[in-house]
């Protein structure tokens, strides 16, 4: 049987290495997501504040982060920030910072949207019942917002994971880089390995993101939005 190249995947620790590379991406995505949730919640609440300066500053932050391609942000942080601060910023850390900044902005906007979607009469009724403003937030607004927020936040996780595929461009050894190493290593014996390796990576990303997307859809239906 002529060598198709698929056997490259099962040679040595190649498959384990690919999965290890994928884990690097996932780890960065999930850590960034955790930071984004923690920082995005207060940010979203603050964005609904009536304080104009607070709103302005947050809005500037949101738009600045969102208008530029994530890759450009990665470049700016990875290549430039180290020169600015003298701090040795590894590719992983630069990626984590950029994704956390971006995720916080997105998350904040989702929270803002969820809070704004609460009908005015909810506030009025709560106030009429004698709840203080903070009580209104914690007992009335946030629980209802959370229902709307959950599917959107889960969706943000898949976006985050997909975006981590960019970090190969700042030299992080993740699943794509491992794939390239395998392809290069087998260049002479299995010239067609590229097809299989890239197809595998395609599939791996799909296998990770698809269930999460489905979860988001299911949540959306279940919470009847």
């Amino acid at each position, binding site marked *: 049987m002529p060598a198709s190249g698929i056997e490259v995947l099962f040679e040595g620790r190649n498959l384990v290495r690919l999965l290890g590379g994928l884990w690097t991406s996932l780890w960065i995505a999930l850590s960034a997501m955790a930071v984004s949730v923690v920082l995005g919640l207060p940010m979203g609440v603050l964005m609904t504040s009536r304080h104009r300066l607070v709103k302005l500053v947050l809005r500037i932050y949101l738009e600045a982060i969102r208008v530029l391609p994530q890759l450009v942000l990665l470049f700016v942080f990875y290549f430039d920030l180290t020169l600015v601060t003298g701090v040795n910023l590894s590719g992983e850390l630069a990626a984590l910072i950029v994704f956390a900044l971006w995720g916080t902005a997105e998350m904040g906007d989702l929270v803002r949207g969820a809070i704004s979607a609460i009908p005015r009469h909810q506030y009025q009724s709560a106030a009429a019942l004698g709840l203080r403003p903070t009580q209104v937030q914690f007992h009335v607004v946030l629980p209802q917002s959370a229902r709307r927020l959950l599917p959107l936040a889960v969706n943000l996780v898949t976006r985050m994971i997909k975006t981590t595929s*960019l970090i190969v461009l700042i030299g992080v050894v993740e699943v794509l880089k491992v794939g390239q190493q395998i392809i290069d290593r087998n260049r002479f014996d299995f010239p067609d390995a590229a097809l299989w390796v*890239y197809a595998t990576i395609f599939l791996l990303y799909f296998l990770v993101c698809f269930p999460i997307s489905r979860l988001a859809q299911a949540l959306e239906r279940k919470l009847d939005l």
Partner: protein
Amino acid sequence: MELSVLRAYLPAYLQAAEATLAIAGLGLVGSTLLGLVIAVAQYFRWPGARPVTAVYVELSRNTPLVVQLFFLYYGLPKLGLVWGSGVCAVVGLTFLGGSYMAEACRSGLEAVEPHQSQSALALGLGPGPALRHVVLPQALALATPAFTANAIFLIKETSVVSIIAYPDLVYVAKDYIGNDYNTSEALALLVAFYLVILLPVSLGAAAWERRLRHAGFGD
């Protein structure tokens, strides 16, 4: 930051911006057409459309463009399909954007009330003309905010095409970083060019959305 360096780099960036806009434009057209076909096929329940489009939408949405491009550019030649980097970029953007555009069109179509097409049919229009003259114009107007959001998303996504040696803005920036080590100048121009391209679209979209909202009933 040295102005002379910025000036020297400017022509290369202008050329690269053109290249970026070219694939962004073609990718937008491609994904809009694809999205429209899918949305219409689902709307009219064409036989077989559901499973096929469902598989496509899931694949498109749950894989990164970078991986799609690597597969198209470095994987497919092993099957005898050698596409240039520009073609791969447009195909990749269309594959990615099609599912998002389909969603935008779908929500637009569903927002057009059924009696609109019923009335059109009752007035004697065929299904084709009814779609073209009555339903689609309204659906597209309703889908505009989602459409512009997708457009911004797609333009931003073009930033990765340098991995398949397409000479876009990032490609040029990496070139200057790698050869001249003028990291700061190269990055400053990169940021500036993306802002010049994306800001007007973003601001225009925001303004357009506000107009639409104010045109609606109540809140």
